[in-house]
């Protein structure tokens, strides 16, 4: 992993000094704030009604009605925004010619790919940490289950990492950042809506098949507080597969110039 730290630090630096990051963070926090507000507002509306209706009171559950929807909303927000963070990773280096530096420095190809990947993962982690105050507010108002919240963060982090690996790959395909972002956005959307195919599939085999491939389907158990190795494996395989494709792509770039 020669050169990993140098590239990793460079990636973080280039995020801190780029307006894209600040715009993405701004939009992300505004939307998250809005979703949190609407989830809590909905919950309080339901609890007022439950005062008159004892049947409804049974369904009141802060995990199911605030935490879960909030993390599912958050996953969609990041699905829409992650291509903007990943689009420049390779596309910009190729456009500006700096890829020639990176590929002629004593940095192994593996270190280069992983450093770029973990660079954006760190940025995503930063965004996630920024959503923590919402739960402090929740802690002040009521008594949320922090273990469930931790499971949610873990699941969302894995899912975000797989979005990032896909974005990294599409960025290696082209010099044009808009094309890279569009491709990764299209692919991510495809991986999301494939679960809808599952709901209209005739046989259970097909239903399972489609659901298995859905990138957002696997995050749902985490939002229930369920940490299942199968879903962790899915995300890790997803990341490994796209990192592998990216490395092949860089190899072919070397051969063809």
């Amino acid at each position, binding site marked *: 992993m*020669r*050169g990993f*730290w*140098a*590239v990793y*630090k*460079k990636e973080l*630096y*280039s995020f801190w*000094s*780029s307006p894209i990051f600040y715009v993405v963070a701004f939009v992300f926090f505004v939307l998250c704030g809005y979703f949190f507000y609407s989830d809590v507002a909905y919950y309080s509306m339901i609890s007022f009604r439950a005062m008159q209706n004892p049947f409804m009171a049974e369904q009141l559950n802060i995990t199911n009605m605030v935490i879960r929807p909030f993390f599912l909303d958050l996953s969609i927000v990041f699905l829409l925004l992650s291509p903007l963070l990943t689009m420049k990773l390779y596309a910009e280096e190729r456009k*500006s*010619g*700096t*890829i*020639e*530096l*990176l*590929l*002629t*420095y*004593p*940095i*192994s190809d593996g270190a280069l790919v992983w450093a770029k990947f973990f660079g954006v993962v760190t940025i995503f982690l930063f965004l996630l940490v920024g959503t923590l105050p919402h739960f402090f507010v929740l802690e002040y108002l009521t008594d949320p289950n922090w273990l469930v919240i931790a499971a949610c963060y873990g699941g969302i982090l894995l899912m975000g990492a797989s979005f990032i690996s896909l974005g990294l790959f599409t960025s290696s395909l082209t010099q044009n950042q808009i094309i890279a972002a569009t491709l990764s956005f299209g692919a991510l959307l495809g991986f999301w809506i494939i679960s809808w195919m599952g709901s209209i599939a005739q046989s259970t085999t097909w239903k399972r098949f489609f659901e298995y491939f859905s990138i957002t389907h696997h995050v749902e158990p985490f939002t229930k507080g369920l940490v299942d190795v199968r879903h962790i494996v899915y995300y890790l395989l997803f990341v490994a597969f796209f990192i592998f494709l990216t490395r092949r792509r860089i190899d072919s770039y*070397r*051969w*063809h*110039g």
Partner: protein
Amino acid sequence: MIEAIDLTKFYGPIPAIRDVSFTVARGEIVGFLGPNGAGKSTTIKILTCFMPPTSGTARIDGIDCLENSLEVRRKIGYLPEIVPLYAEMTVQRFLRFCAEAKGIPAKQIKREIDRVVSLCGLSNVENRIIGHLSKGYRQRVGLAQALIGNPSVIILDEPTIGLDPAQIVEIRELIKSLAGKHTVFLSSHILPEVAQTCQRVVIINKGQIVATDTPENLTKQLQRTRQVRLMFDSSVPVEKIQDVMKDIDGVTGFSPANGDGKTWIVETDPDVEVRPALAKAVVESGLGLVEMRSIDLSLEEVFMQLVTEEVVQADESEVQS
């Protein structure tokens, strides 16, 4: 130090370079000369491990570029043709990244940055953002990143392109100062530059090496006729010149250099020293001689000859087949 053996590179069906072979000894400054599109950058990209050759071997300090690429990359400092810089970084931050990426120990990084900054004259822009620098400074930052870590081999692809004359002189002086301590291989399509900075020249045309020698030897070899320039104080008619020249052994022809008839170019056989006889004859004829000077073929002319000869030969073989 640098060995290229039968390097061939195809882009699809089109060969960019064919059987390119040359060597560069330790401490030498060698120029790589060729018209645009001759295959200079392709050869350089193979030597710097940026891309593998279709066939052939490239070795730096005896290490194969393909088999042990990381090891080779540690030994070279490379300035690509389009100077690759991170525009959002300051000079200082960029050089720090370069030093870290090249694996320079953390303790030496600061000293190493200071060294290349003063070597490349970047002290007054150290904390400026690269995107705001002028072309000349960016070129120097590019050179600084190539020199950081004191690599034994320095490969520069068109290092003075786009610079103003004063900057070109500075960069050339800098390159010359690297001789001995570093092995320098620099490409260019500007001939005087190579003639001034390099000890040896490799000339490439259409993907093939056409000549390898010192600039002086190349000019000597290709000088089939020697020319002597004569200048008189007043206009001289053709008949008069003919009259003087006819008795001198070795003169093969003469022609007026310009319209006023004062200056004449005399072509002579390169194996015969005609100048004493010529001087004597001119003085005896009573013409007012102002100047007599032998003209050396410039590297530019040698280059043109080599490159055009190739074309003529190629055309001939096409006709024959």
